[in-house]
C-alpha cells in the first residue's frame, strides 16, 4: 500500500495477544472469536482492496451485553477496536489494525420489529440494507436509501457512513431516514438516541453519529422510517452531443420544480463500457447520457415525463427514449447499474472516486479531468448522480504495473482537490476512511478539524475506537482541551454596542 501511515502498533497489546484472545473467548463464547491467521484473512480488507492488514483478533459478538463487555475491557486496557459491518466500505473505514480487535457485527442479523401504523422497522445493525426492504415489500413498503452495495451492506454500516444511493435527491440520505439507534460507547455504556418518534431531545447526537465512520460508538440497533412504494416509475434515456448540454438539462429540470426519483449521468467512456457489457441499447454517438426516473402516481409520472422530454429537446438532446414498460425501464438502468463491473472488464483495475460538486461546475470538472487523464496517462470513466452533484470517476489502471496504483491515487487526489476548488467536497457518500484522510486539510483548516476532534473526545477520549481513520492526525484530547487565553488578555471588542 502506498505510503499510508497508520497508528503505530502498541507493543504492550501485541505482547499480550494470547491473553486478550483468551479473555475475548470468555466474553464471547462459542465460535465468536477468530484468531488463526488463515481464518482472519477474510477480514483483512474491506471494499477498498488496495489496503490489507490482519487484525489482532476477530470478535463476532451476538448480544449487546457482549459488545459492551468487549468495549469496556478494551477501554480499560488501552486496546484499540475497529468495528465492521459487512465490510463493503469503499474508503477503508473497516480496515483492520495490527494491534486492534476487529469487532464484526454480522451476527446481529435479526429484524426486531415491523410497525406499519408508525411506518418503522427496528433492525439489528448486521441486517442488510436490502433485507429491510425484503421484510416489508409484501405490504408494499420499502426502505428508501439504496447504496449500490445494498444487497450486502449492513444497516449499521449505513449509519456509520451516512450512505446514499441513486434515490437520495428525492428521498434523502441515511441521516434523513433513521429515527433512532442504540449504541455502545467505548467505555461500555449503552445509550439510545431517538426512537420511534421524530427528533431527538437535546443535542442532535443521532445526526452526529450518522456518518461518523465508526469512531464514536458501535451501533447495536437501528430504527428506520419505511415508505410506501410509489405506484409507478418510468424513466427517460436522453443522449446529448456535449456534457454541457446534459448538465444544463439537469439544471432546467430542477429549475422547473421537478425532483426526479433518480437522475444519473454517464460520460462517453462509461457509456461504451456499459453498452459493450450489457447491451442495454445505449446510444454510442453521444458525449453524455442521462437517465431520469420519475416515480409516483401514473398521472403524475406521465405529466412529468412530458415536461422533462420538452426540457431535453430544448437543451439539444440527440436521442430521447421513454420507457414504455417496466422491462424497458429496467433495461435503461441495467447499463448504469453494471457500470462498475463493465469498467472492470476494460481495465485490469479501477479506482472509484466520490467527490461532490455544485452541478453547474460539471463541464469545468469534466474538462479538468480530461487534462489530468492526459497528465497521468490513465483513462477515466465517469458516472454521476447528476441530481445531487455526486461524481464517481473511475480511474483505470493496472496494479501489476509498478507505480500505477500510486499514479492512480495521485490522479484521484487531484480530482478531489478540483472538486473542493469549485465549491464541492471530498466525499459524497463513500466516506473519508483511510482513503481521503490525508486530503482533509484541502477542505478544513486545523481549527475546523479540531472541532470535529472535540466531538471525538467527548465520545472516546482515549482515541481507541477506529483510530487512523478520518483524521489526518489525531491530537490528544488533553492538548485540545487547553484554553490559551485568560482574563485581561483580550481587549474589549471594538464593535457597536449599547
Amino acid at each position: 500500500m502506498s505510503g499510508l501511515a497508520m497508528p503505530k502498533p502498541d507493543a504492550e497489546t501485541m505482547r499480550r495477544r494470547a491473553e486478550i484472545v483468551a479473555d475475548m473467548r470468555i466474553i464471547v463464547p462459542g465460535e465468536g472469536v477468530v484468531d488463526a491467521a488463515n481464518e482472519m484473512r477474510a477480514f483483512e480488507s474491506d471494499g477498498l482492496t488496495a489496503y490489507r492488514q490482519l487484525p489482532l483478533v476477530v470478535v463476532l459478538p451476538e448480544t449487546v451485553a457482549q459488545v459492551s463487555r468487549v468495549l469496556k475491557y478494551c477501554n480499560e486496557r488501552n486496546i484499540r477496536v475497529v468495528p465492521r459491518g459487512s465490510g463493503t466500505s469503499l474508503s477503508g473505514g473497516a480496515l483492520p489494525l495490527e494491534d486492534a480487535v476487529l469487532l464484526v457485527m454480522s451476527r446481529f442479523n435479526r429484524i426486531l420489529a415491523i410497525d406499519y401504523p408508525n411506518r418503522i422497522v427496528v433492525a439489528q445493525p448486521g441486517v442488510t440494507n436490502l433485507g429491510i426492504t425484503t421484510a416489508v415489500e409484501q405490504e408494499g413498503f420499502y426502505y428508501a436509501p439504496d447504496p449500490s452495495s445494498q444487497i450486502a451492506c449492513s444497516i449499521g454500516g449505513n449509519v456509520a457512513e451516512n450512505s446514499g444511493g441513486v434515490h437520495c435527491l428525492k428521498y434523502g440520505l441515511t441521516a434523513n431516514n433513521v429515527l433512532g439507534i442504540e449504541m455502545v460507547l467505548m467505555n461500555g455504556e449503552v445509550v439510545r438516541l431517538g426512537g420511534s418518534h421524530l427528533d431527538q431531545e437535546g443535542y442532535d447526537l443521532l445526526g452526529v453519529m450518522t456518518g461518523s465512520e465508526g469512531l464514536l460508538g458501535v451501533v447495536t440497533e437501528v430504527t428506520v422510517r419505511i415508505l410506501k412504494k410509489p405506484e409507478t416509475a418510468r424513466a427517460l434515456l436522453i443522449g446529448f452531443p456535449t456534457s454541457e448540454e446534459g448538465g444544463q438539462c439537469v439544471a432546467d429540470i430542477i429549475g422547473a420544480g421537478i425532483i426526479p426519483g433518480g437522475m444519473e449521468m454517464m460520460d462517453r467512456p462509461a457509456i461504451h463500457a456499459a453498452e459493450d457489457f450489457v447491451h442495454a441499447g445505449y446510444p454510442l454517438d453521444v458525449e453524455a447520457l442521462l437517465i431520469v426516473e420519475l416515480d409516483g402516481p401514473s398521472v403524475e409520472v406521465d405529466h412529468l415525463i412530458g415536461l422533462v422530454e420538452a426540457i431535453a429537446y430544448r437543451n439539444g438532446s440527440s436521442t430521447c427514449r421513454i420507457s414504455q414498460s417496466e422491462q424497458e425501464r429496467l433495461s435503461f438502468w441495467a447499463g448504469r447499474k453494471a457500470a462498475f463491473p463493465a469498467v472492470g472488464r476494460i481495465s485490469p483495475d479501477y479506482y472509484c472516486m466520490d467527490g461532490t460538486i455544485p452541478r453547474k461546475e460539471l463541464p469545468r470538472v469534466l474538462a479538468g479531468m480530461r487534462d489530468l487523464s492526459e497528465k497521468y496517462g490513465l483513462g477515466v470513466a465517469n458516472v454521476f448522480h447528476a441530481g445531487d452533484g455526486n461524481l464517481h470517476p473511475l480511474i483505470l489502471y493496472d496494479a501489476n504495473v509498478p507505480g500505477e496504483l500510486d499514479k492512480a491515487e495521485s490522479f484521484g487526489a487531484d480530482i478531489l482537490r478540483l472538486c473542493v476548488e469549485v465549491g464541492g467536497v471530498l466525499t459524497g457518500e463513500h466516506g473519508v476512511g483511510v482513503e481521503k484522510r490525508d486530503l482533509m486539510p484541502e477542505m478544513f483548516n486545523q481549527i475546523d478539524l479540531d472541532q470535529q476532534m472535540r466531538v471525538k473526545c467527548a465520545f472516546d477520549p482515549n482515541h481507541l475506537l477506529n483510530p487512523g481513520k478520518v483524521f489526518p492526525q489525531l491530537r490528544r484530547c488533553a492538548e485540545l482541551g487547553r484554553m490559551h487565553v485568560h482574563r485581561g488578555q483580550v481587549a474589549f471588542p471594538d464593535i457597536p454596542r449599547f
Partner: protein
Amino acid sequence: MTTFTPSTPAETLSTIQWAAAEETPLEILGHGSKRGIGRPLQTEHTLDLSRLTGVTLYEPAELVLSTRAGTPLAEIEKLLAENGQQFAFEPMDYGPLLGSEPGKGTIGGVLASNLSGPRRLKAGAARDHILGVAAVSGRGEAFKSGGRVVKNVTGYDLSKLMANSWGTLAVLTDVTFKVLPAAETEVTLAIRGLLDDAAVAAMALALGSSAEVSSAAHLPERIAAKVAGGKHGSDAATLLRVEGFGPSVVYRIEALRKLLDKAGPLEEIAGEASKAIWRDIRDCVPFADGGARPIWRVSMAPSQAHHMVMALRMQAAVDAFYDWQGGLVWLSMREDDPEADLLRGLIRKYGGGHGTLVRASAPHRAALPVFEPQPPHLAALSAHLKAEFDPKQILNPGRMA
C-alpha cells in the same frame, strides 16, 4: 450590562474571544422570538446577532441558499417565494404562542431550535436541510462544517450538531440550507367528527398509502374552530394535506377519498384556505390565547401519543391537538401547574419520546427542566460535548439545563 451588536463574522468572533478570556457569560440572541423558551438566563452581557444579516449566495437551480445567521427568516422566505421555492421543513413561528410579534425570528434561530412544521412528517426538520455552517465556539474559535452540496460525508456533521443546541455550543455566523421547489397545488382532505383513536387510525391508513400525504393533523372538537378564523366550524377535523402538480393532487385526493370513504364525512379545502389551516396548526394558534398557562410540545410514536393524552386526562385537565400523524401533541394545561413529572412519566410509559415546556411562567421555567431530561449516560455525553465546545460555560449557560 452591554449588548454587543456585531454585523460581521469577524466582529462576532472578537466578542466571543473577549467573553471567553473574561469567562463572562453571554446571552445569544437573534430577534428574541424564542427567548421565552428554556431556563431563564441571568447573563451580564448579550450578544445580539440581528445585525449580522445578508444573503451571501442563492442559486435556485442548485437548490442552495447561504446567509448570515442573523438574517430575518421572513425576508428569506419572501426571496424564496419569489423564485417559486421554499424551505420544505416549514419552520414554525413561535410569535403567536409566546405572545410576541408574529413574523419575527432569524435563520440562525431556526437551526438553533431545529424548527419544523406540519410537513416535518414527510420532509424533515431544519436538521434535515442544513448543508453547512460557520460558527464560533465558546472557546472563541471560528470554524466551518459541511458545505454547499447535498451529498457530503466529509468529516463529522457539526451542522446537525448545531440543530436544537439553542446557542449553547457555538454561535452561528453563517448557514447554508437546501431549498426546494414550492408545490404548485395543495389540497386538504378533512374527515369530520372523529374521536382521537379513530382519527389516529385514519391518519395511519392515509400515510400508509401511496397518496404521498405531506401532513396529517387532528383537531378535536372545539379546537377545530380555533384555526383559520373558525370558518370551518367546530366539528373535529382530521386533516390530510396533499401537495404537488395539479393532476397528481386531484388523483391522490381521489385515492384518499376511496380509502377513507367509510371513516366519516369528507370535505375538500383547497389553495389559500388550506394554507391558512396548516399555518395555524404550524404555529400552534389554537393555544395562542395571549395567556401564560403552560403549553407542552410532545413528540412520540404516532400510534401512542393519544393513549398518553387519555391517561393524562384522568389526572389533569388538558386541551390537546395533534400534528405529524398524531405523533406531535400540543398540550395546553388548564391549570397553572405544568404537571411535568406526571406528563414525562406517561410519555415513558407509552413508548417514549420527549416533551418540551414551550410556554410557562419564568418561575416554572427556572424550577423545572424545560427540555426533556436525559438518562444519566446520555446526559453525561451531552455534558462532555458542552465542555468540549464551551468549557467556560459562556454561551447561554443553563438554558438547556
